Each structure stands twice: as C-alpha cells, then as structure tokens.
C-alpha cells in the first residue's frame, strides 16, 4: 500500500477503484479513463505507474488484449470492496434457484476452489503451475516429511514425558515449599500473637523506636499510661516529641540530649528513674524506664523502652523522705532535750551527792539522837522504877501510919476523925492503883513481844475463873464458843482477856441479865475475837473515847476503875498488828472485838 503513495495511478472513471483511492487518499496523481481497455492500453504504452482494478476483470482483460508487459500483483487491497454475486432479472426465480443449485454442487464436489483459483488465483500460480513439480514434491517430500513427522512425534512424546516428570517433581517441590511456608506463616502468626499478648498483658508500658526516633510499636499499658486512645496516634510518630519533650522542671528536653536517644544511636543500655513522661492531657508523671537497643546484624536499628508510672512510688519516697526529715528533726529535738536532761541530771546528781552528804550527816545526827533517845529511854525506865519504888513508899507510909493512928489512938478520935483517916487511906490506895496502872501501860508499850502459839481457849477459861468470884460464877452464864489459837505474846494477851473479862463482869453487875459470850470468826488474813455482855453498855457516840488513857464513860461511883484498862488492851492489840473496836447501846450490853493476824 505504501508503495502506491505518490505514484501515478490510473483507474476507470466511476469504478470502485476510483472511489477507493480517493477515499483512502492513496495518492494525489489520479488519472481516469473511460474504459478499462483504454486504461490498460495507456499503462502498456508507458503512461502511469499502476492501475487498480478488480482482480477478475484485470486478469481477463490482460488475457484478451494479450498484454504481457503488465504484471498483475496478487494481493488484496484492504478496504477495497470486491463483492461478487449472481444478478438476475426480476421475477426470474427459476434461474436463481438453478444458479444456487449449481453453486452447491460445485461446493459439494470440491471444484469450487479449483474454479475459484482458475478465475481468481494469482496469475503467477497459473504461470508456474506445473503438475510435474507438484508430483515430484508430492512423491519425494511427502514420505520424507511423514518420516520426519513420525520421528518428530516420537521425540516430542519423549520430551513431553521427560518434561512432565520434571514438572511433576517441580510441582511436588513447590507444594513442599508451600507447606513449609504455611507452617512458618502460622508459627509466625502464633509467636506474633504471643508476643502481642505478652506485650499487652504486661503492666509496664513498652514501646519501640526506630533509628529516626519514630514509634514502631506500643503496648496497651503504654497507651493507657500515656492517655492515648489507639496505636495510630503514636505509631510512626516521633515519640520523644509526644511524651518526653519537657523535663520535670519544665525546661525543654531536646531529643539529642535524651537518654533514650543514646540507646538507638549508640546502642547504650539505659536505666533511669528521675525523669518524667507527659500524658496526652498535658500532665506529667514520674517514670522509671529501661531502654534496650535493638541490634540486627551488629547494627543498632532502634530501641525498646519499658517504663512504669512511679509517681506513687515517688510520692511514697517523698513521704518517706519527709518522715525521715521529721524523724531526724524529732531525734535532734529529743537528743537536745535528752542532753538538757542529762545536764539537769548531772546537776541533780550533784544535788543528790550533796543530799547524800547531808543525809549521812543527818544519819550521824540521827544516830546521836537515837543514842540520846536510848539514853532517855533508860532514864524513863529509871524514872518508872523510881516512880514505882519511891512514890509508893510515901503512899505506903500514909496508909500505914493512918492505920497505926486508927489502931493505937482510936479512943482519942471521934467518928468524923476516923472517917477522915479512912478517906486518907482510900485515896492513898487509889493513888497506888493509878501508879501501878500507869506503870503497866508504860511496860506494855516498852516490853518486847515474845510471840508463841497460844491456846486462847484455855487462857480465856483460866482468866474467867481467876477474875470472877464465886458469887459471879453462880450469877453469870459464861458461854465460850470455839476460838482458834493465836500466835501472840502470852502475858500480854492474858492482860487483854483479863481486862475485857473483868470489864464484862463489872459492867454487868447491875444488869438483870448476866451473860458473857466469847467467840471468834476468821476473815481475810485475820481472826476476830469478840466478847459480848448484856451489861450497861455505852453510848456509841463516845466510842472514840473508849480506848483513851484515863477516859471513863461511867462515873467512879457507878463502876470503879482508873480508865487505863482499855487503853492497855488497845496498845497490846495494836502491837500485835491487830485492830480493836466496840459496838454498844446504852443498857443493852456491849460487844468488844479485837483482831489478830491469822498466822
């Protein structure tokens, strides 16, 4: 087609070819003739370069005109319409059907192609076609080619087998690899899940950083601690700028001086517990973190940071520190106080030493005083002796000589004179009684206690028998209950009973009912003895006067006595570490109690 460009092409006017070259714009040198014969003649004469006609028309005309200088070219021009058909006069259907029948026969007996080739085949074929050549080809080439084809087929079959085997082998190997890959993949998934679980189940925050300082991974705890909602807020971003941008004191913290920076730049392991991390809400918390380098092929490719919120711990530490400081302050204060006290104590000690000195001086003085006392005690004894001895002699003389007077000069005295002398004698006797009671009282106080086990019942019995006269024994109902023995001074306790029994007898002398009851009761660590009478008794409001020396609740004219007896009894009981008391109502009798320790 390209060869036709710019060539002088001749066509028959109004032919398809004219429309074709004009439509396709094959060339601008278009020449037309009125007939095909004219066009071929002109071409044969040397005009124009080429003619375009329908194949059959061209071949037929060349044959008829016997032109041999023009060569038909056997190729189809694209988009050049060459439609052939049977055309019949309208209404001549029998002819048309005859033509179709003939065509179908031609097609059926394979002569169509022959016919077509005869009419439409290339002109060369017609020229070259020699049955002999074809025969030779057929005779020689056919068997050779059949043999060759057979050999080829055998070879091909072998090759196919071999290839099939190797392919199957390859497929098997691929399958193995694929399985292994699957296993690896599932293991990887598993371990990844495990690592993820591990990461997310730890309480400490963990995050990874690549060499640019961007976050490569972060676990749940870290998100939670830092206040992020999801990983996307952190992963791929510069984590230093997110959480580590400012120091605890508020000053900016450049990434270059950050400790963690050292890890993923230099591969240093870092442990730190005095920095802060910042949460998304702008608050900070004290943290402790470990920063480990990630090393791949001996190169640091990043870092993993594990951290904790230690603000509670820090708070605790602060509190501890505070406590410690307070304690130290207290200790210092106490130490100071103690030192002051020690100083005071030193002073006190000195004071004590002085006191001890004073005390020993006092002791010496006391010893002197005691000696003096012992001396005066002896003097007292001497005094008591002389009282008893020397005071009595004049009394005896008064009494004795009054008696002589009465005996020798009775005739010279009238009754009044005799009464005076008797009064003198009685008073001398009373004075003697007073002196002996006083001496007795002082003896009771001074004498040492000779403690022994004493049969109380037998003492009481014998004293009653000694003290009560025959008449009294007849009058009185004497009732002695069971009384326990006592550890006491025999002669002193005898005086107690002697005084109490004689009192009971004396104060019952004017009562109608005469009964003395003696008994005892044991109570806490003591034995309480009692003596009960139905006598005159006393007014209980004077009870405190009962045991006083020379104290009397009755007139001498009613009941005789010096008022020393109960005083002696009280002293004896007190000297035995006992108590004495009395209960009474006037004219209803009295009960005297005294206790002795129950030993």
């Amino acid at each position: 087609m390209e060869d036709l460009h710019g060539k002088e092409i001749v066509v028959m006017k109004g032919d398809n070819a004219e429309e074709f070259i004009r439509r396709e714009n094959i060339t601008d040198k278009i020449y037309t003739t009125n007939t095909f014969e004219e066009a071929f003649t002109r071409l044969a004469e040397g005009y124009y370069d080429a003619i375009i006609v329908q194949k059959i028309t061209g071949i037929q005309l060349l044959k008829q005109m016997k032109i041999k200088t023009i060569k038909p070219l056997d190729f189809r021009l694209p988009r050049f319409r060459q439609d052939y058909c049977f055309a019949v006069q309208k209404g001549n259907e029998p002819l048309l059907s005859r033509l179709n029948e003939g065509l179908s026969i031609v097609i059926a007996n394979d002569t169509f192609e022959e016919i077509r080739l005869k009419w439409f085949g290339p002109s060369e074929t017609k020229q070259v076609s020699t049955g002999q050549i074809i025969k030779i080809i057929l005779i020689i080439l056919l068997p050779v080619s059949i043999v060759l084809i057979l050999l080829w087929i055998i070879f091909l079959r072998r090759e196919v087998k071999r290839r099939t085997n190797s392919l199957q082998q390859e497929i098997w190997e691929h399958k193995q690899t694929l399985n292994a890959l699957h296993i690896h993949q599932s293991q990887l998934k598993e371990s990844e899940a495990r690592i993820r679980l591990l990461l997310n189940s730890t309480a400490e925050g963990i995050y990874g950083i690549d060499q640019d300082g961007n976050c490569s991974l972060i676990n749940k705890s870290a998100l939670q601690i830092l206040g992020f909602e999801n990983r996307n807020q952190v992963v791929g971003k510069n984590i230093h700028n997110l959480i580590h941008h400012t120091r605890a004191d508020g000053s900016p913290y450049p990434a270059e001086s950050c400790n963690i920076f050292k890890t993923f730049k230099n591969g240093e392991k870092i442990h730190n517990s005095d920095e802060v991390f910042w949460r998304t809400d702008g608050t900070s918390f004290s943290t402790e973190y470990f920063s480990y380098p990630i090393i791949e092929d001996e190169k640091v490719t990043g870092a993993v940071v594990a951290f904790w919120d230690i603000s509670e711990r820090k708070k605790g530490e602060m509190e501890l520190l505070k406590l410690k400081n307070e304690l130290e302050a207290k200790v210092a204060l106490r130490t100071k106080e103690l030192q002051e006290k020690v100083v005071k104590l030193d002073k006190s000690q000195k004071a004590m030493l002085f006191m001890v000195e004073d005390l020993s001086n006092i002791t010496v003085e006391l010893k002197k005083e005691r000696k003096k006392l012992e001396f005066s005690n002896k003097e007292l004894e001497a005094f008591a002796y002389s009282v008893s001895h020397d005071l009595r002699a004049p009394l005896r003389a008064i009494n004795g000589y009054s008696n002589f007077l009465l005996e020798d000069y009775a005739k010279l005295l009238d009754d009044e004179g005799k009464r005076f002398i008797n009064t003198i004698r009685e008073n001398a006797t009373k004075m003697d009684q007073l002196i002996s009671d006083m001496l007795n009282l002082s003896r009771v106080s001074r004498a040492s206690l000779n403690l022994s086990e004493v049969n109380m019942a037998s003492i009481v019995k014998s004293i009653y028998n000694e003290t009560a006269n025959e008449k009294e024994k007849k009058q009185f109902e004497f009732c002695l209950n069971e009384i326990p023995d006592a550890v006491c001074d025999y002669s002193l306790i005898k005086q107690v009973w002697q005084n109490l029994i004689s009192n009971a007898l004396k104060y019952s002398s004017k009562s109608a009912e005469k009964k003395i009851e003696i008994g005892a009761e044991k109570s806490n660590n003591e034995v309480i003895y009692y003596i009960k009478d139905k006598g005159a008794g006393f007014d209980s409001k004077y009870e405190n006067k009962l045991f006083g020396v020379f104290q009397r609740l009755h007139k001498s004219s009613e009941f005789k006595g010096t008022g020393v007896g109960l005083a002696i009894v009280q002293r004896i009981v007190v000297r035995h570490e006992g108590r004495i008391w009395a209960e009474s109502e006037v004219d209803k009798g009295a009960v005297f109690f005294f206790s002795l320790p129950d030993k």
Partner: protein
Amino acid sequence: MENYEEVDILIVEDNPNDAEMTLRALKKNKLANSVMVLDDGEKALDFIFSKGRFQERKKTVRPKIILLDLKLPKVGGLEVLKELKQNPQTQIIPVVILTSSKEEADLIESYRLGVNSYIVKPVDFNKFVEAVRELGYYWLLLNEQPK
C-alpha cells in the same frame, strides 16, 4: 540488940518508915522475937559474913530469914542476894525480897540468883500484915532448915 547471935530475922531496909511498918506487921503476927534492922547492903553483908563492926559475931549462927529490900544505899539488894547465894555457908538462908515495885527485870534477876520469895509491899497495911504473916509461918515455923 547487942546479942547478934540471937537474931532470927534480919531486915535490910533503908526506909525507917517501911522498917517500922515491917516490924509492926511482924509484931502483929507475934514473929518479932529477935529482929535486926540494917539500913544498907554493906552493913548487911558485914553482919552476915562477920566483917567490919560485926567481926566479933559468930559466923556459924545464921539468921533464920532475911527480908531484903532491893533499893539500898552503897550495896544494892540484888548484890547482897548474889553474895549470899554464891557462898555455900550462907546460901541456905531463906531470903525474901520485900520491894515496892513488881519490876519484871528485878523479879527475874532475883529468882535467877536464887531468891526464896518475892513480895511487893502493898500500900494497904492490912494486906501487908497478911503477907508478912504468911511468909513468917512458912519460913520461920514450917520450914525446917538444916543445921
């Protein structure tokens, strides 16, 4: 009382009133046959052991009883008692202490030294007479001494 050998009762008493009363009590009981009164302990010892002014006296003749006061000038009653009771020749003579007070210490010491009786002189003279009678009967009449 020149005849010292006839002394039955020896009273050693410095108080003349007491001595007189004792004599009167003895008389009342008809015991005052041959009574000798000495007014201190030294004289009493001289008399008994025939010393000093009594050196002429026969030692062999002893009074039947000695009534001894405790409180005496020069040599006390207890000392006299001790001398008497330590000497084998005199220790058999009955000694009765006649004293004003019943001082326990004196009483115990007297008995320790071997006194035969101990009488507290009562203020009431009648009781004194009674007491003297009792001891006179016992020591002078009933109690037979070895010769």
